[in-house]
């Protein structure tokens, strides 16, 4: 398939892997930030191609995994109200809240629908004037522009029955948290290619100069990741720390300016609770006051719904790259995709789920 197969060529992959082997002289710990990258690494077994010196740890970049427990609870509460059509991307439906998930809410009679775009939810609102249509606006900077556009469109169309439960999170504050942690082990980052497609990579240059840590903006195909790893190893071995762009076919330094404009118009930066990690200052988006009429939390009065995250799994350590999923005693036994203890086991992009799906036999070996 054009534009895909070129980036999955096993021969080129072997060549890049050999190049990494030639370059590396000592151990390095690298983190891929984005859950989509984790998924590719596991699915293609990229880590098996790498020399022993390279350790990959998996970052907090799965939007499904880091959405706060109380936001999921709020979603379930709103979805369960009469007259509501609750719309979401598919993989949020299985995320457990405190006691239930959206699938369970659907089984209990809630009108929960999977959509492929927030604009589909806007259309649904237009077609169902007697119902209140809510879209679950989660994700990183990648999904935020389309969500901002949906709210903007709804206002322009004069819709009064569309709203969004917004829980957007931002990548750079989470990377800063990891870099500031006294137990940080990460020496180089594969920065998230799709986030940078939207935002550019100026923010990452600031992190690099502050923490002297190399970063390579990487794509999502096997060869993208191998090349990004190779570029990181070069920087580390040569003692450089800069932002390099492996994913130049999609990312430019300034990003997508029209997307950033709509983001600024509709959202403002706010504090956010991260599941498994805790609160991070200025790490998310919320709707600006001008768009308060589209804020589902306000409309349905669920701001008071708070959830205590019970102490059980080590997802915080996994999401910060301090532990591997296989280090967890509950992994694969008490914690599986069917009975997820922690959020990283929920989404296919979550580090634990990716390990479970593709690498479980490592524990049996």
């Amino acid at each position, binding site marked *: 398939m054009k534009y895909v197969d070129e980036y999955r060529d096993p021969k080129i992959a072997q060549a890049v892997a050999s190049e990494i082997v030639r370059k590396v002289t000592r151990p390095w*710990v690298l983190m891929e930030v984005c859950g989509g990258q984790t998924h590719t690494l596991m699915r293609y077994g990229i880590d098996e191609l790498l020399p022993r010196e390279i350790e990959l740890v998996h970052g907090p970049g799965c939007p499904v995994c880091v959405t706060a427990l109380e936001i999921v609870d709020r979603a379930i509460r709103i979805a369960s109200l009469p007259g509501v059509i609750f719309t979401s991307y598919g993989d949020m439906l299985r995320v457990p809240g405190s006691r239930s998930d959206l699938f369970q809410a659907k089984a209990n009679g809630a009108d929960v629908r999977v959509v492929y775009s927030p604009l589909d939810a806007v259309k649904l609102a237009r077609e169902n004037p007697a119902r209140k249509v809510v879209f679950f606006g989660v994700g990183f900077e990648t999904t935020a522009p389309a969500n901002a556009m949906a709210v903007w469109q709804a206002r322009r169309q004069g819709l009064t029955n569309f709203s969004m439960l917004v829980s957007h999170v931002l990548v750079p504050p989470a990377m800063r948290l990891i870099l500031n942690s006294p137990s940080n082990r990460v020496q180089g980052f594969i920065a998230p290619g799709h986030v940078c497609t939207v935002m550019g990579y100026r923010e990452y240059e600031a992190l690099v100069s502050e923490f002297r840590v190399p970063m390579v903006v990487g794509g999502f195909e096997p060869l993208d990741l191998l090349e990004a790893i190779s570029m990181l190893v070069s920087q580390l071995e040569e003692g450089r720390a800069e932002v390099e762009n492996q994913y130049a076919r999609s990312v430019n330094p300034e990003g997508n300016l029209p997307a950033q404009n709509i983001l600024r118009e509709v959202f403002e930066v706010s504090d956010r609770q991260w*599941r498994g990690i805790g609160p991070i200052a200025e790490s998310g988006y919320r709707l600006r006051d001008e768009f308060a009429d589209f804020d589902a939390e306000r409309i349905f009065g669920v701001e008071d719904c708070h959830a205590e995250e*019970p*102490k059980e799994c080590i997802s915080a350590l996994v999401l910060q790259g301090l532990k591997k999923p296989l280090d967890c005693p509950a992994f694969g036994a008490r914690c599986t995709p069917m009975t997820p203890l922690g959020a990283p086991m929920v989404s296919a992009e979550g580090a634990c789920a990716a390990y479970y799906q593709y690498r479980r036999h490592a524990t049996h070996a």
Partner: protein
Amino acid sequence: MPETITPEATAAQAAAFVCPAPLAQRGQIVLGHGSGGRLSAELLRDVFLPLFSNPVLDRMDDQAVVDIGGARVAFTTDSFVVHPLFFPGGDIGSLAVHGTINDLAMGGARPLFLSAGFILEEGFSTEALRLIASSMADAAAAAGVSIVTGDTKVVERGKGDGLYLNTTGIGIVPDGVRLSSSQAKPGDRVILSGAIGDHGIAILAKREGLEFETEILSDSAPLHNLVAAMLAASSGTDAIRCLRDPTRGGVSSALNEIAAQSGVSIQIDETCILVRDEVKGACELLGLDPLYVANEGKLLAIVAPEAAHEILAAMQRDPRGAEAAIIGTVGDQSAGLVTMKTAFGSTRIVDMLAGEQLPRIC
């Protein structure tokens, strides 16, 4: 060098950052129970099998094979709730005929008679019903089976999704043919009859209004002639251990079931599995894995190694098996484990689907 994490630091971190508790056992049916994956298997294990248990059912094949007056009769039933009712490459009527024929064929049976049970919703178009019935008649005639009995019920508006359809079928298993998912042996080869994912993606594309340059057609088709050709090629031997049509849950679920029921491992090779470009593209777009997507005109065969090439050649001579290929081998590692050698030479687990396969967020 990075500093090592002390147990104290780990404990402190774990105490500072906390994480969610598991969901209690589900007390209700959710959509995932119908996905053909792990939740469906749990429902069978926890509800049906303990109550209905008997030697025929406990074999857990796609069809029951029972002795009646000296004849070995294959017997199966399937319900169809597909939405939309009409889709590129077929409709619920032809699908219901093919699905039941295939369940019989996977037992090695020659399909003979079908029943048709209609559950209609008040307000459903009689013209649409006529089209569906006519499609069933055509599919049955083309496959050489007769629809010999039936039933119609009507439910109130809002209590059904237009039309649900059940078909039950019986057929005769030829002498000497004994196929079962519990018969795979280490060393056996895995044959797949063609490209995967067409049906599931055709339905999804139609349902969600996704458009591709090339229209993706469902592969819905009867497979009994292909099976007959395979049996003829291995006549008088037990070289064909088992046949499965990878419908709901896709190739991964079918292989996981065979591996579990036979107490063997199975390793498949990614480069041997055919996925059409347009299906691959749709899967990329939606974040789906073709191994988990439904097929309605493909089969998986577990066959003895010495007969594999002869059976494969027979399959390739049949239009339904023209693209058949050997995709893997049965092994004796952990029982029930299915793995795939990727194009990169690494190995990954091919797990059973946990619940519904969900389109990913990004």
